[in-house]
């Protein structure tokens, strides 16, 4: 069979061999419950806490601000609902219509079940929101502002530094940032960010593993009730081996962050150049977004048809967020940016990693060219 080419790294990534090796060996040797009092349990507990400290050190927060979760969907859900539950006197949330579905649906749930008022920030042509609009939307009863750092469909960057300063200085609201697509790709600072979500499997780690960074002063109720695990914010026997290798996953990602930026920039530019020579292709991603994500449309073929054809030609690629992959609706992110229904229904998202090569990019451009000529 012809070699398949992976261009869906914003969806998930292949586990790093070193992470995988460590994980398997930990599963075999360190299976004790981290809460057990005998030596083996204590050892698992010690190692988990070491991993927590190491991850905290890498992120520049303190160890009691790192909560292990099952991934970003859980981190996002817990941050939003947990903070709302802790203070039901304030019932206003500010967010954007281009968030990941875990944020959108958590907010909609608060609206539907508990009568929360949601302000959806306007999204501009470049795929991002403006700090000014956050300022205008803040109210005395605003409990939470949730804005993602990097959009998963377009790679657009939101002005997080400006937004967090406004939220901190001009309101009593907390600021949550979904950093799932930013971790290991661009520098992150957690100063003045009250809550943040990160997932392991987007940075060559394991599925079912993530963290929620929550500053100690933020009141929050757990979503999953249980024992005193994770400072009481997340019940359930720890997924210890996965939590332990999260630190390694993050370290490796941060160590190669500069190389990642340079490599994906090179591939991105090559890809944009190649696609721009194909008649009818329009690039949806902003020029100053994250180079690892490139979204484009070809308005004569719907997303699903393009995906089928590219799949047949050996490319693993998505049209939009993988969590929305089974819906045939146009991309809500592109619609929010002001794209037409047509353009938002005919998009493809290329997402890159260190493992992609220039040859793969050239092969992809060639395949898109042939596809547009054959079916366009």
């Amino acid at each position, binding site marked *: 069979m012809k070699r398949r080419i992976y261009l869906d790294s914003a969806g998930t990534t292949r586990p790093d061999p070193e992470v995988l090796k460590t994980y398997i060996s930990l599963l075999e040797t360190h299976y004790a419950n981290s809460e057990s*009092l005998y030596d083996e349990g*204590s050892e698992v507990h010690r190692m988990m806490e070491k*991993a927590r*400290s190491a991850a905290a050190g890498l992120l520049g927060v303190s160890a009691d601000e790192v909560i292990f979760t099952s991934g970003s969907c859980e981190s996002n859900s817990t941050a939003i609902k947990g903070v709302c539950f802790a203070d039901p006197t304030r019932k206003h949330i500010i967010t954007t219509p281009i968030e990941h579905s875990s944020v959108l649906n958590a907010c909609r749930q608060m609206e539907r079940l508990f009568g929360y008022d949601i302000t959806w920030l306007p999204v501009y042509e470049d795929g991002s929101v403006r700090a000014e609009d956050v300022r205008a939307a803040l109210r005395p009863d605003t409990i939470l502002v949730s804005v993602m750092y990097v959009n998963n469909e377009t790679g657009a960057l939101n002005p997080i530094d400006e937004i967090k300063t406004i939220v901190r200085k001009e309101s009593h609201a907390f600021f949550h940032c979904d950093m799932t697509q930013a971790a290991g790709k661009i520098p992150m600072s957690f100063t003045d960010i009250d809550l943040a979500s990160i997932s392991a499997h987007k940075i060559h780690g394991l599925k079912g593993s993530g963290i929620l960074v929550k500053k100690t002063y933020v009141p929050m109720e757990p979503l999953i009730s249980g024992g005193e695990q994770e400072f009481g914010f997340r019940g359930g026997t720890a997924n210890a081996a996965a939590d332990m*290798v999260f*630190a*390694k996953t993050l370290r490796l990602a941060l160590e190669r962050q500069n190389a990642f930026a340079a490599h994906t920039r090179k591939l991105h530019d090559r890809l944009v150049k190649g696609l721009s020579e194909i008649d009818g292709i329009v690039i949806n991603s902003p020029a100053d977004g994250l180079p690892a994500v490139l979204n484009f449309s070809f308005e004569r073929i719907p997303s699903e048809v393009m995906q089928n054809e590219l799949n047949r030609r050996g490319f693993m690629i998505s049209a939009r967020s993988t969590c929305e992959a089974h819906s045939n609706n146009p991309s809500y992110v592109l619609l929010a940016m002001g794209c037409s229904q047509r353009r938002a229904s005919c998009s493809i998202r290329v997402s890159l990693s260190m493992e992609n090569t220039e040859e793969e990019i050239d092969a992809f451009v060639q395949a898109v060219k042939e596809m547009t000529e054959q079916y366009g």
Partner: protein
Amino acid sequence: MADYDTVLIRYGELTTKGKNRKDFIRKLDNNIRGILREFTQLEYRRSYDRFYIRLNGADAEAVKEKLKKVFGISSFSFTERVDSNLDAIKERCLAIAKDSGKQTFKMITRRHDKTFPMNSDGINRAVAGYILQNTDMKVDVHHPELELRVEVHSGDTYLMSEKIPGAGGYPSGINGKVLLMLSGGIDSPVAAYELMKRGLDVEAVHFASPPYTSENARQKVLDLASMMSEYNQGRMRVHMVNFTALQLEIYKTAGDPYAITLMRRMMVRLAEQIARESGCLAIGTGESLGQVASQTLESIACINSVISIPVLRPLICMDKVEIIDLARRIGTYETSILPYEDCCTIFDPKNPVTKPTVKKAEGYEARFPYDKMIAEAAEAAEVITVHPQERESFL
């Protein structure tokens, strides 16, 4: 792009002169080499008022983190060496300025080599003029975003843009050795830090009461010692004393109110003995006046009366809040608050006496052969040398 190849280190509290100054510098030299020994490619050079390390490709960030924890350093900078000629200085300063991405700058030149044909002010003007011509940057002498420092020596000139504060204080070990009573709580690691800052080499003694105290509690103490060893020339000796037999005897004999007082009296006796045997001239503690029953002035007096060795209490007048702040800064707080029982909490008396008297304490002590038990416990103490933790393989 600035190409940092040398670290320039400025000495700390050099108010001393003559032989003391020489000792200070020699000790600091020794401690710096010790803490950086894993970087085998480094080259060291010492001058009258500066210490230089050639990086030779070593990871500057890692070296920086290590140097921040060396007492006796007032500040340090990563520098680029150029030949002492004006054109070379101008070119490389321009490169550093461009690379910084800053809008405003200020030149600070020191001309150590008075034979250099231009004075400091002349060099400032020449270099600043060159940067102004070739960039959009502006000079701001009051609040510059970038301070460009030029130090002209004969032959070599050092360029630097950031002055990183050092840990201050005296080089570890220059003022002798002290035995610290390390409980595993918040205070004692902070006490260790303060003692080390005054140039003391610190050893630790820990009292464990297995099975009332767990393996976790013991490991926690060793972890704390390992963290503190980074400030202590990269190693720390820990004397682990099994205190169970004495503790049980105390509770049997004295009961609740006097138990803590007697326990502390036994501990300082043990510490004094171990201190003398290992060449420590004093005992150190993390006591803070009035914090708990055993730390009232009456308690301290009653406990102190059984020993003659000096006791250093660097935290005695500090607030708990100040101590916690410092613990957070030196990085021990989160380990200290891990909830494992130590021998102070395990028997947790309900009504500890806050104003114990020597007479009563001696009365209780006459009822059991504590001398013999102390001698046995000191004899059986385990000595463990810890080092800064290397990254475990799973991390």
